[in-house]
């Protein structure tokens, strides 16, 4: 168990190194931030700023400096805002995580019961409706879903605010938007993995023993069917963080996604690096949790 933990932590560090290397290279290949910080300023002023930000140094030096700083928890100052990048990212984390976790919860709350029902009552009306809805849900881009929900709930029926983050009511539409993105895949996974196990011998045995149908499905079948669900849900969490970028823009949510978008536009390297680094850490952490859940659900893995 300890060895597994250590391996996981090492993997986490390697991933973080890789992520920062990739972010660093891509961003620095994409242009000069100074021109975007002060677009209508004369060249002489821009030279001064470029020196002040250390952009005149060779790329290797810039990367070493960046990495040395990151190791001490310092992501440098935002080029654009001239304040430390890390606090800018951290103060936006709660909104993004709230949104992502709620969306995930919503997606699971729909996907698991409907998925189980569809599997157990195969070819029933619910199963068919679910198939169609899954198809629709997967084909809608996140921003489109968002705008449609705004038109329906906020402009037409006026039951929810259009955008913002002041009240819990403002969280509902973005969470549904993001959840809609995730629910279809989870639903399909639940349905197909349930279908696989409901006909296995041990389920039949349980039924034959006279165990009630509910217990058979929830305790015996679902526990085994949950393995693929946990894997996919973990992966989905990363995708949701990505989807949050767009959702945050549509609903004016003050989250990390919006910060990343505007920072990329301004080529604000330190902020993008700090934000991507943190999101990568979260994804790695979620994967870690998934691994642990796996072990709980399937003790065989521990032996291997």
């Amino acid at each position, binding site marked *: 168990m300890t060895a597994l933990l250590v391996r996981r932590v090492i993997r986490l560090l390697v991933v973080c190194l890789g992520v920062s290397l990739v972010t660093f290279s891509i961003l620095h290949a994409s*242009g*000069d931030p100074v021109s975007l910080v002060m677009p209508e300023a004369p060249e002489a002023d821009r030279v001064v700023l470029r020196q002040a930000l250390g952009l005149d140094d060779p790329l290797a030096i810039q990367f070493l400096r960046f990495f040395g700083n990151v190791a001490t928890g310092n992501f440098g100052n935002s080029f654009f805002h001239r304040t430390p990048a890390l606090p800018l990212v951290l103060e936006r984390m709660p909104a993004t995580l709230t949104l992502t976790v709620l969306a995930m919860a919503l997606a699971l709350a729909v996907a698991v*019961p409907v998925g189980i029902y569809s599997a157990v009552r195969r070819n029933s009306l619910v199963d068919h409706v679910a198939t169609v809805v899954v198809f629709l849900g997967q084909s809608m881009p996140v921003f489109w879903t968002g*705008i449609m929900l705004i038109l329906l709930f906020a*402009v037409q029926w006026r039951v929810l605010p259009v955008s913002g983050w*002041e009240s819990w009511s403002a969280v509902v539409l973005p969470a549904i938007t993001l959840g809609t993105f995730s629910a279809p895949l989870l639903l399909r996974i639940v349905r197909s993995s349930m279908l696989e196990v409901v006909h296995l011998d041990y389920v039949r045995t349980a039924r034959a023993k006279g165990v009630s149908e509910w217990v058979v499905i929830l305790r015996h079948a679902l526990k085994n069917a949950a393995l693929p669900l946990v894997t996919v849900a973990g992966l989905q969490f990363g995708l949701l963080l990505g989807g949050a970028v767009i959702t945050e823009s549509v609903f*004016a949510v003050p989250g990390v996604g919006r910060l990343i978008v505007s920072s990329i536009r301004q080529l604000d390297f330190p902020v993008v690096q700090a934000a991507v680094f943190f999101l990568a850490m979260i994804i790695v952490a979620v994967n870690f949790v998934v691994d642990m859940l796996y072990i709980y659900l399937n003790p065989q893995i521990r032996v291997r």
Partner: protein
Amino acid sequence: MKRAFVMVLALAILATAAVSAPGQSKDTLTVALVSIIDTLDPHMHFERVGILININMFDSLLHKNAKLEYEPSLATSWKALSDTVWEVKLRKGVKFHNGDTMTAEDVKYSFDRVTEPGKEKKRSPQYGNIRAIKEVRIVNPDTIHIVTDKPFPLLLERLVFFPIVPKQHIEKVGDQAFGESATVGTGPWKLLEYKRGHHIRLEAFDQHWRGKPAFKHLTIRGIPEVATQVAELKTGGVDIIRNVSADLVPDLKAHPQTSISSAPILRTHYVHLDMRTEPFNRKLVRQAANYAIDREAIVQKMMAGLGRVVPTVVHPAVFGYDASVTPYAYDPKKAQALLAQAGYPNGVDITLHSSFVEFRPVFEAITQMLTDVGIRTNARMWDPGPAWNKYFQGEGKATHGYYGSWGYYSVFDADAILHPLYHTEPGGWVGKWYIRVEGLDQLVDQARSTVDQAVRKRTYSQIQRLIKEEAPSIFLFHQFDTLGVSKRVEYQARGDEWLWLFDARPKR
């Protein structure tokens, strides 16, 4: 199982029904911007949205009214004592939001804060705007002298946006706190709450020397998506939105809750031509390109009429504009003839670039019109980041030219576009890569080194005739700033793109 499903569904419906959209309080004015600045320190940023917010919290020495005429603000009068010294009388008894009285010390401090040498790392991005100011001298508590290092004809323009900040207060709380929570100015609104990246709440400042604005509260919200801004406007979540594009105009005009307010602004569109390489190293081809574009059709059909054709890049509203210079006519036949005369009877293939995303359809129309007369144009769109590398930096590598616009930094003087775009000195902007017009540099320098406005006007006339003939760019049009305004608010868009919300009042 069925029961669980029904319960989840019921819960979801309940959750949506239990809450309702918050109503708008009557004395609050809400404005949407695409983003909210990350510091409220008015000297520490350079962005349009920052300026829009700060002008409502801070006063400058001079103000421009809705007709864009100079008006006294913190200065009650100003005059030039010589080519390089201006005397400015200060308004008496002006209060900062914390109750302190504004003095000549504060004014001097504000300028020193930006121009003081040796603070390279912390230097304000607005330094370039006012670096011609060598010194601010306090003559007596109500009078200052502004000394420039050489004649600086743009001084008054620059003073219209140069916020005055409180010296003692900043020294006490520090720069950081001043930009985040303890922001204090003399402007019509004072800070209530600032949530970085999300919103700013302001309250009318009781002791402002102008009196009180018509709305007691002002909320500025950052909403990046245009579709969301429009939805907020229609439902009363916000009262004013900016940069309404032509395709949204009919919709907002027809809606019962919203209206449109538009004003011509300085943003001028052009296609910069690369005079170093074929075919635009030939004057006849550059002229042909100018004859090939139906500017009027683009403005009317693609921009909903929200624009005006300009003869050169010099805007009709700025100092130095010469109305006797007329725009190139739309004459595709003449364009073809000129192209043949220049040695391209079978046409020529070129590439044009742009990163002006909002005007992509216009860019495509231009490239099509050029193609129609034989200047077969390959259109390339870029993200702003890579675009800087591609044609503003290094050697201005983009081939043949690019479509872009220039906002004059809201300075109403021909220098504000001629110097950055066409001057070829190393300190210039893009001119050094693209422009090869004999004698143009000298003329631009001549016009900026005197405060004799008659001489400057003559020089600018000469420049406009010269650049029309030489055609270093395809001259296009200037655009309008279009606001979407709620029917419950009365507010008129301004020619300088400012949102001067002191002028906003409730309707009904």
